[in-house]
């Protein structure tokens, strides 16, 4: 390799390392800011509460919407979760992940809500299997076959609809892993379940999701 080639490789490597370092620095800055906000919130700082609410509003709402499925219920649970945060923050253990703690509060509220409003939804969201109703039959009208070049948005919409058909325990594990991008250990903390259980739920959820998708939209690319 000549000098120019070496310089190019060196440049690419330097940029790569700098990029990696930059990302790591941003991550740590974010962590420090989060820890500082949580510490301030524990001291009763109203601004810290506001900052944390802004930081987590979309993620928390998305999780609650996946759990409850109804926007009105998700909004109600969203408000209840932040009230619960204000009530329980003095009991929060700073050695734990704040994110996991927050989602655990939200999950407990959502499960209580579902148990009260729709107890059947905690077990199986699909209707009576004996009557031949399956997840696929509950999909929105799909008269025409999938066409090439279908819009990403439409695919996502369908994927979202199919996701809603899974039982709540499978929906939540998928949303925590793929949408919230939580580590498996964090998911286990939120669910209060062992790692092996979380992995089993994740695998079953993915398998079920794929079966429904392949039955309903054969040959479609889900990326």
């Amino acid at each position, binding site marked *: 390799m000549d000098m120019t080639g070496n310089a190019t490789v060196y440049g690419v490597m330097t940029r790569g390392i700098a990029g990696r370092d930059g990302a790591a620095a941003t991550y740590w800055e974010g962590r420090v800011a989060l820890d500082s906000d949580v510490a301030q919130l524990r001291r009763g700082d*109203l601004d810290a509460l506001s900052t944390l609410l802004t930081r987590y509003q979309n993620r928390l709402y998305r999780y609650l919407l996946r759990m409850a499925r109804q926007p009105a219920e998700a909004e109600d649970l969203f408000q209840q979760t932040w*009230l619960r945060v204000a009530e329980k923050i003095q009991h929060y253990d700073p050695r734990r992940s704040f994110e996991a703690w927050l989602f655990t509060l939200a999950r407990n509220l959502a499960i209580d809500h579902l148990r009260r409003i729709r107890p059947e939804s905690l077990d199986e969201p699909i209707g009576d299997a004996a009557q031949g109703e399956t997840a696929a039959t509950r999909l929105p009208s799909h008269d025409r076959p999938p066409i090439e070049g279908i819009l990403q948005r439409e695919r*996502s919409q369908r994927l979202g609809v199919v996701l809603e058909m899974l039982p709540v325990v499978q929906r939540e594990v998928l949303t925590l892993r793929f949408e919230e991008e939580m580590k498996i250990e964090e998911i286990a903390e939120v669910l209060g379940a062992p790692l092996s259980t979380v992995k089993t739920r994740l695998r079953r959820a*993915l398998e079920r999701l794929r079966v429904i998708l392949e039955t309903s939209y054969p040959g479609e690319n889900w990326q």
Partner: protein
Amino acid sequence: MNEHEKIRALLSLAAADVLEPSEEKQLMDHLRTCDSCGVELEKWKLLAGGLRRLPTPQPRSIVVERARAQAQIRLTEEIEHCWNRTVIIGLLLFAWILTLLSWPLVRLFTGGLLGMLDPRFNHAWIVFGVFTTTVWLAGGAAAVLLSLQQRRERRLA
């Protein structure tokens, strides 16, 4: 279950990036020789990619603002409650210490005039002790009941 079936069961978890390092190595070794598992893994990865790209629904701003306002009010109440509890505990301790200290102090300053307050184990001492404890317990119970009632009212509100 043979090696191939075991690996098949791992593919969905591989797409979710939750395999243990040993499982990942096992998978990589298998993929070198098994094209069908490679194809299958690609399908799982496409599905995982689709899930990661799902649109993020956003809460209405009015809901966010309402949640913010309510949570701030509740936080202020909790802090006030916490402060009140600390003050009450402090006052209780102070009052008990004062009460206990007052007996020998009164005796000391009156030069033994109030002999009935002699902190030896006599009848007057027992009566005085029981009376003081009863008054304090009644006061404490009233405070706890009032606090519980307040909390219930706040929860209902």
